């Protein structure tokens, strides 16, 4: 009888351990955080690129900042503000929630897995021929519109830097742009947290003539050229 009881306890322990493992595995969902998107969902969404308008990112930045400073009395309310870069809507897009520390471009550990997922997608074969734009947005949160443009730019830059520096995705393949609240993901609900998501857009094919070298080759090529310079 005693042996049986011990057996039971041991089995219970085993069951408990299994439950603990299951709970640990699903804890992000339990804590109410959005699960990291699947790599193949990102790949499928972003590989559907045929062609699109050319974007001059360096020229867009001052244009966006300039409009965010406008304080005219006739300024339309946020939901009626025309999107500052409407062309962005013509590219294959994947929206991804990334948690940042308040008012900073620091990505919280809760979103590390998501960052890794994006990197996994970017090195996956179907996305190798493409280059991307990381777009940072903002909701209407009472802060100055200019501050929101600046913060969204810094956050888009941070996402790009992690992909380039930590996961060694070729810098040539990724650009970043912050549009703040000059363009919403959900125009009808400017205050919605949906607008805090980061957008990844496939904006171009890596040109055939002078291809952006693959990440690994890019780093070795960079090393070689820096050696030559020395």
């Amino acid at each position: 009888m005693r042996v049986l009881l011990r057996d039971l306890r041991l089995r219970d322990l085993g069951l408990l351990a299994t439950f603990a493992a299951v709970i640990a595995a699903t804890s992000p969902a339990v804590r109410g955080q959005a699960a990291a998107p699947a790599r193949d969902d990102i790949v499928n969404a972003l590989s559907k690129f045929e062609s699109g308008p050319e974007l001059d990112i360096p020229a867009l930045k001052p244009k966006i900042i300039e409009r965010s400073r406008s304080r005219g009395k006739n300024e339309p309310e946020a939901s009626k503000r025309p999107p500052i870069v409407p062309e962005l809507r013509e590219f294959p897009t994947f929206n991804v929630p990334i948690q940042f520390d308040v008012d900073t471009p620091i990505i919280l550990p809760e979103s590390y897995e998501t960052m890794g997922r994006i990197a996994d997608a970017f090195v996956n074969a179907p996305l190798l021929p493409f280059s991307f734009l990381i777009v940072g947005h903002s909701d209407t949160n009472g802060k100055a519109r200019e501050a929101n443009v600046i913060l969204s730019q810094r956050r888009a830059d941070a996402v790009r830097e992690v992909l380039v520096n930590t996961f060694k995705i070729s810098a040539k393949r990724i650009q970043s742009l912050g549009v703040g609240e000059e363009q919403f993901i959900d125009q009808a609900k400017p205050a919605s947290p949906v607008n805090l998501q980061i957008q990844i857009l496939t904006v171009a094919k890596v040109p055939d003539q002078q291809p952006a070298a693959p990440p690994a080759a890019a780093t070795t090529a960079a090393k070689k050229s820096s050696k030559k310079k020395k």
Partner: protein
Amino acid sequence: MVRGRKILLILALAAPSLAHAADPIMTFSDAAALLAKSCGAEISANCRGVNLDANRLKECLSRNQDVASSQCRANFLVPFDQIQKRIAARVTVAGACRLEIIKLCHGSTKETSKSVPCLLTAKGVSRNCTQATIDAGYR
């Protein structure tokens, strides 16, 4: 008998982590998730203001080892190491698939990524080359 079962139970609990260690190379997302799981609290407490940067975050975590949990102390180098291995795997493809790139795909090992679609579909690709494309995350 009971002791034997306890050992079995411990083995059963440890098995998933052993299997994990035997995995070839973690995906970027698994490695990043492991870092957040092992050291998320430490990062929030001691490395606030440091982004997911292989050098700066690793440096910050190692500087704060004395106040880190045993879990973080034991695991914090693993994700960085795994990320590094996965990046290095992309360079390995050029070597492991040299013959395939030149003969089957008529490409150049200097532009490996251009031959990747061919490497994934061509017939007669060596096991080494196939493994290299898996390790690099191309598949």
